[in-house]
C-alpha cells in the first residue's frame, strides 16, 4: 500500500485518484470514530462528509507536521463538536469514580485472586481463536462508554500515539491513560464472559 505521504503529494498536485484512494482508506475509520462523538449514524455520515469537504479545500495547508491520519481525525473531532448535537448528551467523565479493572468479587478480602482468569491460549497461537477474538472485540467496542471508546479506537484500533490522542481530544496524558485502562479492562472482561459461555 502506498504511504500516506505519497498520497498527499499526489493530492496536492490535484490527482483525483489520490483522493479516491484516501477516501477508500479513511472513510470507514472516520465513520467509526465519528460514531463515538455524535448520537446517530446519520449525523456521523454528515460529519465525515464535512471532513472530506475540508480535505478538498484544505489539503494545500497540510504541512505534514502530524500524520495524515491524525490530521483527518482532528478535523473530524472538531467538526463533530461544532455540530452542537453532542452538547445535550455530553456528560462529563468522572475520572475519580471507582471503576475497577476486575470486579472486586473476584478477589479475596486480602486482594489475592479468589477466581483467577482462566487461561485463554493453550500453547501455540490458535488462528481460529484469534479470529474469533477480533470478531467479538468489533462488537464489544460499540458497547464501551463514549469517552473510553474514543481513546481505545484511536490508540488500539487505529494505532495513534498517546500524545496525538491527547492533542485531538484535548485531555491530559494521565486522563488518557485512565480512559484507556478502563476501556481495555472492560473489553477483556467482556471477552472473558464471552469465553465463559462456550
Amino acid at each position: 500500500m502506498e504511504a500516506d505521504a505519497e498520497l498527499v503529494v499526489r493530492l496536492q498536485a490535484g490527482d483525483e485518484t489520490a483522493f479516491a484512494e484516501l477516501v477508500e482508506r479513511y472513510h470507514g475509520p472516520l465513520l467509526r470514530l465519528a460514531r463515538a462523538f455524535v448520537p446517530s449514524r446519520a449525523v456521523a455520515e454528515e460529519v465525515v462528509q464535512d471532513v472530506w469537504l475540508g480535505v478538498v479545500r484544505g489539503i494545500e495547508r497540510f504541512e505534514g507536521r502530524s500524520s495524515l491520519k491524525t490530521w483527518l481525525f482532528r478535523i473530524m473531532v472538531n467538526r463533530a463538536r461544532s455540530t452542537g448535537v453532542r452538547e445535550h448528551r455530553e456528560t462529563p467523565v468522572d475520572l475519580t469514580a471507582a471503576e475497577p479493572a476486575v470486579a472486586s468479587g473476584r478477589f479475596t478480602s486480602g486482594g489475592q485472586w479468589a477466581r483467577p482468569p482462566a487461561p485463554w491460549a493453550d500453547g501455540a497461537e490458535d488462528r481460529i481463536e484469534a479470529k474469533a477474538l477480533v470478531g467479538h472485540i468489533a462488537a464489544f467496542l460499540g458497547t464501551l462508554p463514549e469517552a473510553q471508546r474514543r481513546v481505545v479506537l484511536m490508540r488500539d484500533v487505529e494505532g495513534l500515539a498517546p500524545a496525538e490522542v491527547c492533542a485531538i481530544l484535548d485531555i491530559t496524558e494521565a486522563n488518557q491513560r485512565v480512559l484507556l485502562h478502563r476501556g481495555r479492562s472492560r473489553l477483556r472482561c467482556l471477552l472473558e464472559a464471552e469465553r465463559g459461555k462456550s
Partner: protein
Amino acid sequence: MLFRRRRRDLVCQLAVELITDYLEGALLPDDRARLEVHLAVCPHCAEYLAQIRATIAAAGSVDAEALAPDVRDELVGLYRRWQQG
C-alpha cells in the same frame, strides 16, 4: 500511593490496576520493579497481562466498515466539482 500498605509486596487486585500504566511506561521505576516481581511469581496476574495484550492485539485487527461504491462516487464527484471550481 497504592503501595503504602505494604512496601514490598503487591497484591493482585492492585497489580491489575497498574497494567495500563505499566504497558504505557508510566510507572515510577520502583513501582515498575515491584510489579515485575509480582508478575514473575503470580501466574494469574501474568495470565491477566497476557489477556490484556491479546485484547490490544485483537483490537488492532478490527477492520472498519468497507466503503460503499455510491459513497465513494459521491465524494469523488465532490472533489471533481471543487477542482473544476
